[in-house]
């Protein structure tokens, strides 16, 4: 494979005024459980494969989509491979139409913060 191929969007970061309320709505819509809850941020998902981060909107920011994460294959054979990240990928970030676009090729196991919490093989 000599070029990057998009597999699909696998993650999003959403800015919201009411983080808890937004997390409930997004969890209901996607079926993703709360994975991590910290001050001003709730992470939904099982692992790095599909996730939604709800983040408290900051002064001067508008609520809405802040980041989209796109999974690709084929990057490893390109000159620009990106840098290793905590999700287990090589990734590159850029701004596209006001949204941060993070392009990632999964290549290794995720770091502890992103490792799947539910145990078992089913």
């Amino acid at each position: 494979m000599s070029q990057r191929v998009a597999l699909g969007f696998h993650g999003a970061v959403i800015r919201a005024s009411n983080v808890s309320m937004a997390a409930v709505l997004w969890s209901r819509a996607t079926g993703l459980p709360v994975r991590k809850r910290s001050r001003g941020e709730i992470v939904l998902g099982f692992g790095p494969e599909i996730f939604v981060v709800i983040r408290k909107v900051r002064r001067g920011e508008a609520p809405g989509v802040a980041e989209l994460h796109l999974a690709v294959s084929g990057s490893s054979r390109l000159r620009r491979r990106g840098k290793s990240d905590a999700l287990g990928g090589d990734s590159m970030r850029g701004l596209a139409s006001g949204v941060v676009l993070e392009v990632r090729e999964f290549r290794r196991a995720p770091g502890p913060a992103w490792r799947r919490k539910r145990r078992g093989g089913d």
Partner: protein
Amino acid sequence: MSAHDSLERRDPNGHRQAGPFGAVLLDLDGCLIDSNDAHAEAWSTALARFGRSVPASRLRMQIGKGGKELLRDFVTPAEHYFLGAAMGEVETDAFLSRFASRVRPFPNAAAVVREMLRAGLKVVIASSADRRVVERALSLLRLRRALTGFTSADDVDKAKPFEDVFQLAIDRFRLGSRRPVAVGDSPYDVAAAHQIGVPCIALRSGGFPPRTLAEADARFDDLDDLWRNGRGLFA
């Protein structure tokens, strides 16, 4: 002990063609090297790194499938789609770094391959394993230069139990006119070969229960047994 009453080649239209066979599509793991347990351990290790606790004993009977096929029973569709390739990379790394050193060739297996080649047979290693794993094994066996060739999972989109690995070996090394026979240790070898009308001889050396190899066209204990007791099957 051997059993090869039903051994015959079928063309794509299902017509029977008797041996002898002039080419061998030979699986690697479980046929030439005693590596199936090590791969099960490596997969268990790899899945644990993704937060999945799957004992090697549950993975053992899936060894022989390509990585993405093996994973289907143990991860969600989303994990399979987005992380399947990475899980395969981690398994290969774990195998090579932690488990490969304990893998040993089966007694006399490499010698049998050399005898097959001396007898004029074409012998292609048709494996679903990662290319690095195949190359390491062939170095261990000192067979790399002697073989007609080899294929690996890297050469095809769909590994065993799909037929792609065997079909590629037949096409790449022009074996179609030589009456090829597949030799493998798992039901996935049998399924892959039969999809393209190639008979499959199963070897029990891979540790699969006999009932799982019932669809094979013949069964032998190992490669040495095949060559000693099934020599007449080959040209």
